[in-house]
């Protein structure tokens, strides 16, 4: 099975800080990590390879330091990876991102399966997976929670989480799936993988390399206009209720009545 996994480098959520004046993330001194859901996407690809054989490629769009993310993926066991990187890609919204990724995937060749994490924890849109499937003209199954290979890898049976429960669907390949953290437990890197990652050259492809039109990438290709961003403040009054659960419930009802809500 030929598998492509799309990953994104995001600021480490445990060290991220906000500039309250500007309403932006403080990027200085913040470590970049692979988006948490993307570890599950990588693991899904590696587990499929373990099961049915094949090759797992990983790709990301980002600045040159996104090579670190690809190296980490290689240390986990993926076969190869590329960074799609160009100044023209800066400021891309999800429409421009899916265009760029689709161009890159087409450049790399044909894939039976494209795997993405459910969403990136910085933008939280969950749009890139489905958008990419549209661009590639393949079916998309989001929020996959369980995965089973059917018919020697020509089909997948997937359990996907939805608002009111689960769907169980079968999909013929090629297809794109986005995965949940509950799908699997990502493996640890291996020493051999780490050594290979260190030595491997990570190709960097530009807009020209993937044949992307500059009007469709980056800020130029992004209809999304960010009007303002604000840092949420947590200044609501808080009060911790104490005592046994029954006492706390009584106290809570009292408070709600007092506030005229009940």
């Amino acid at each position, binding site marked *: 099975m030929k598998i492509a996994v799309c990953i994104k480098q995001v600021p480490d959520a445990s060290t991220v800080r906000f500039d309250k004046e500007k309403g932006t993330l403080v990027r200085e001194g913040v470590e970049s990590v692979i988006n948490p859901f993307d570890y599950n996407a990588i693991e899904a690809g590696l587990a499929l390879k373990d099961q049915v054989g094949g090759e797992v490629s990983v790709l990301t769009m980002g600045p040159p330091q996104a090579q670190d993310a690809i190296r980490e993926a290689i240390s986990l066991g993926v076969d190869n990876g590329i960074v799609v990187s160009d100044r023209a890609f800066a400021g891309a919204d999800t429409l421009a991102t899916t265009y760029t990724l689709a161009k890159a995937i087409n450049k790399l060749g044909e894939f039976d399966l494209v795997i993405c994490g459910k969403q990136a924890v910085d933008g939280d849109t969950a749009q890139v997976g489905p958008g990419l499937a549209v661009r590639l003209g393949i079916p998309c199954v989001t929020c996959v929670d369980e995965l089973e290979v059917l018919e020697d890898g020509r089909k997948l049976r997937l359990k996907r989480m939805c608002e009111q429960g689960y769907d169980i669907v079968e999909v013929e390949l090629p297809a794109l799936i986005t995965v949940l953290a509950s799908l699997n437990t990502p*493996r*640890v*890197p*291996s*020493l*051999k*993988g*780490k*050594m290979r990652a*260190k030595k491997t050259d990570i190709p960097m492809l530009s807009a020209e390399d993937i044949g992307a039109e500059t009007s469709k990438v980056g800020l130029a290709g992004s209809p999304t206009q960010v009007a303002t961003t604000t840092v949420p403040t947590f200044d609501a009054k808080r009060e911790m209720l104490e005592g046994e659960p029954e006492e706390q419930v009584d106290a809570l009802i009292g408070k709600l009545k007092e506030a005229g809500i009940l």
Partner: protein
Amino acid sequence: MSKVNYFLTEEQEMIVDLTRQITEEKIIPVRAELDRNEAFPWDIMKDLAQADLFALYIPEEYGGLGGGTMENCLAVEQLARGCIAVTTTFAASALGGYPILLFGTDEQKQKYLPDVAAGKKLVAFGLTEANAGSDAAGIQCTAVEDGDYWVLNGTKQWITSGGEAEIYTIIAMTDRNKGARGATAFIVEKGDEGFSFGKKEKKMGLRASSTRELVFNDCRIPKDRILGRRGQGFIIAMRTLDLARPGIGAIGVGLAQAALDESVKYARQRVQFGQPIISFQAIQHMLADMATSIEAARALVYAVARTIDAGEKNFSKLSAMAKLFPTDVAMKVTTDAVQILGGYGYMQDYPVEKMMRDAKILQIYEGTNQIQRNVIGQALNKEYAKVG
């Protein structure tokens, strides 16, 4: 944080990074539960296998990475920051594998080591018996030749990974009247006729590791399972332990470091008399002594490991030192950590009580620290006799 530069190679740094990651992500979150349930850490063994760590010390021709004592020490030091029961389970497989590596025929190495390197099979080392602890020459297990077979009888006691390992390297008496020179080493496989497991021990610490009896009742194994020559068993056991001891020292360093980390963290946030307790000299001096002794222990372990890897042949004294000092440090430091955390330290809600319970075994297993002092003392006596 100011750190001593031990001039690690790029590969060695990778080993440290990887084992630290496994410790933080896979071991620390489950260590209390493993300890409580005395649960064998199979999931973590699989992670260590996936990470190629069982391949560390095995030569490349047998599917390994060709690392040495230093690489092993770096790995177990980091793992021991998480849990030494898990680390001991990992390290015991190397202890069991060394006799094959050091004295096995090429056929034996080809047969056993690739599966060990891949982490598919654990190895256990069977030397200790009820009446043969420090006095290993008192072994009562016997092996008798019978045509194309050896027939083993007797019971081994307190064998780490007993019942869980697939491969066992066993020391048994083949010529009882020759004393230590009458011992021979064998490879026994789980499933061999007449080989079974006795009771699983209940322990003070190290509870996630399996410690069991191995019972040989007319256990018949093919002739080619002998390791080395007949009568070489005692030497095989001693060479194996010499090679493994710096690793136990490294486990002591890792455990002590973890206890220090917890102690400083706690002392910085625990407020008494209106200030964090780390502002009191009584606490500062304890922490200073802990940190200094840990660094000294680490330096000793690394120096001895590198000496062994550089090809030194006569290293019994050095490896005894590299086991003795860091494990005594680990006992002292973990005890002081409980003291610094006070009442909280004595509670199971904090990790230091487990660390203190676990630390005690380091002064006992793989040769008690009294035996290490014997080894060092006897070596000094010999060395100075030569000096004249």
